[in-house]
């Protein structure tokens, strides 16, 4: 009876698993930069900003992977496209020469973020349209292949830094706000993350979301009901790519640097790990996963240079003993994957 309306909140989301989290998290997140200031440790704010940005990417991947059952091993491509949109628009803005002769450069965040989402959405539409003709292991590998293609494409584009990447000398500007202030930028990212996660939670509970979940559970049944499977999967893949592109654009702004490494296959792997770590197909899972992975990396890295030697076995243990991710520690019922 755990699906009854009583346990659903205003967003139509099953709140019960992380009810405490939903109440406490906003307060903690809002207070965080001030706590960091009080402690005199600015690195807490930058760490939190990174986590918040990657939450957007992981939650977006989760729409495709967890809710739609599309195991993409190439989402770093969209992260990179988003980042490079910011970088390229900035470099054309500085140089004063329009991109492709007609797209003027800009350093305005209100333009670069939508542009990054459109660019990564188009990339996702192209990659998804081709990849979704396969399935299973082949889908995993063909998404990886497309991401590798983009990786090598950007490596070879000398005009945009090639292998070395490109520096974005100044963060994109917003009206009335000073994005160069790390606390301000943190809040910008936080608001965007909250908005994007809110949107995803609506999508998951909407008619579209139900059809998507149905396709994951039984493609044959949904086809027999008359659902054109391909279109729905592609739409979800594009939305997922756009969100990841948004995260990429923010990441480019955050580190003021974009490079082909953003598209490296290990980056795709890390995004997957965040999703799986937190709990596939749950709303808060990727958030938990991103926080846990980056937090763990930071803690272990502060402890030993060879932190990966601990991280690796830890991941294995989590897979073996917490198959539904960390989210299952917070609540007994988590994970839509196995029911």
């Amino acid at each position, binding site marked *: 009876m755990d699906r009854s309306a009583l346990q659903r909140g205003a967003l139509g989301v099953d709140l019960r698993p992380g009810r405490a989290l939903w109440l406490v998290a906003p307060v903690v997140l809002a207070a965080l930069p001030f706590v960091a200031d009080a402690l005199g440790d600015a690195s807490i704010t930058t760490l939190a900003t990174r986590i918040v940005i990657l939450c957007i990417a992981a939650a977006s991947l989760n729409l495709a992977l967890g809710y739609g059952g599309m195991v993409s091993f190439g989402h770093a491509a969209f992260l990179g496209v988003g980042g490079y949109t910011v970088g390229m628009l900035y470099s054309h803005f500085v140089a004063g020469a329009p991109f492709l002769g007609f797209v003027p450069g800009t350093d305005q965040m209100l333009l670069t973020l939508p542009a990054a989402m459109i660019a990564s959405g188009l990339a996702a539409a192209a990659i998804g349209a081709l990849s979704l003709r396969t399935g299973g292991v082949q889908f995993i590998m063909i998404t990886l292949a497309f991401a590798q293609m983009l990786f090598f494409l950007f490596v070879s584009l000398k005009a945009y830094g090639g292998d070395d990447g490109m520096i974005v000398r100044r963060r994109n500007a917003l009206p009335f706000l000073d994005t160069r202030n790390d606390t301000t930028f943190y809040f910008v990212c936080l608001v965007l993350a909250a908005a994007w996660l809110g949107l995803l939670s*609506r999508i998951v509970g909407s008619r579209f979301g139900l059809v998507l979940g149905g396709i994951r559970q039984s493609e044959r049944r949904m086809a027999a009901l*008359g659902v054109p499977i391909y279109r729905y999967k592609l739409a979800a893949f594009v939305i997922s790519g756009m969100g990841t592109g948004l995260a990429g654009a923010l990441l480019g702004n955050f580190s003021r640097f974009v490079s082909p490494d953003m598209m490296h296959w290990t980056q795709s792997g890390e995004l997957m790990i965040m999703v799986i770590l937190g709990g596939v197909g749950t709303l808060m899972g990727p958030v938990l996963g991103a926080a846990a992975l980056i937090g763990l990396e930071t803690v272990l890295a502060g402890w030993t240079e060879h932190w990966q030697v601990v991280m690796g076995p830890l991941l294995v243990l989590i897979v073996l003993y917490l198959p539904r991710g960390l989210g299952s520690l917070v609540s007994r019922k988590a994970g839509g994957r196995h029911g």
Partner: protein
Amino acid sequence: MAEPLLAVEGLVKRFGGLVATDHLSLDVREGELHALIGPNGAGKTTFIAQLMGELRPSEGAIRLSGVEIGRLGTAARVRMGLGRTFQIVQLLPDETALDNVALAVQVRHGHSFRFWRAARRDASLRDPARDYLAMAGLAARADVPVSALSHGEQKQLELAVALAGEPRLLLLDEPMAGLGPSESRQMQDLLAGLKGRIGMLLVEHDMETVFALADRISVLVHGRVIASGDAAAIQASPEVRVAYLGEGDV
């Protein structure tokens, strides 16, 4: 002469050298229950898959109310009034019985590219879904997750989901398979209640059910219809005895 609801003419499906469907012709009238029987491997499931558009036939015509549908995709055929159940149930295991049917109602209502409103509390989907559940005898089990339903209940739910698509022609792939005696009885009553309202093509091994329900019976052997007629005619047909019913006597 009125067009039958479904008319299949000269349908052929080849897999490489193997002929799974061999110049198959058959029709189903409005409101009729037409049973298709035949030994294992006769090509019954392959035939249903071709009717639904899951497999492309190699040759032949499939008409629904006189309209050729043989080249259409599954979604288009469903819009024109086709529906099916699966021999091995195809349900959404993470959802409740009601959610399964509500989703079928939702799909019939048109496209689902709607991204904002919460669909799980949409009365325009839930209320009709409850009616279909009741029709299939599952009113009391609406909020039970599929994984907690018995096999018989899952078969009933499979039927409810198909009915929610409001098909004019329902293709039933062995709805009795794996049911106990009382569950069988219940399913038989359900199907009997649908006769006259929607056309049904029933693929079934359970002869008792077939002879009790069918208006007409066709016998499929090696992808070909070798006999067609009412229960008495089929039971009397010497070809059927040799090719099919005789199996048990040898």
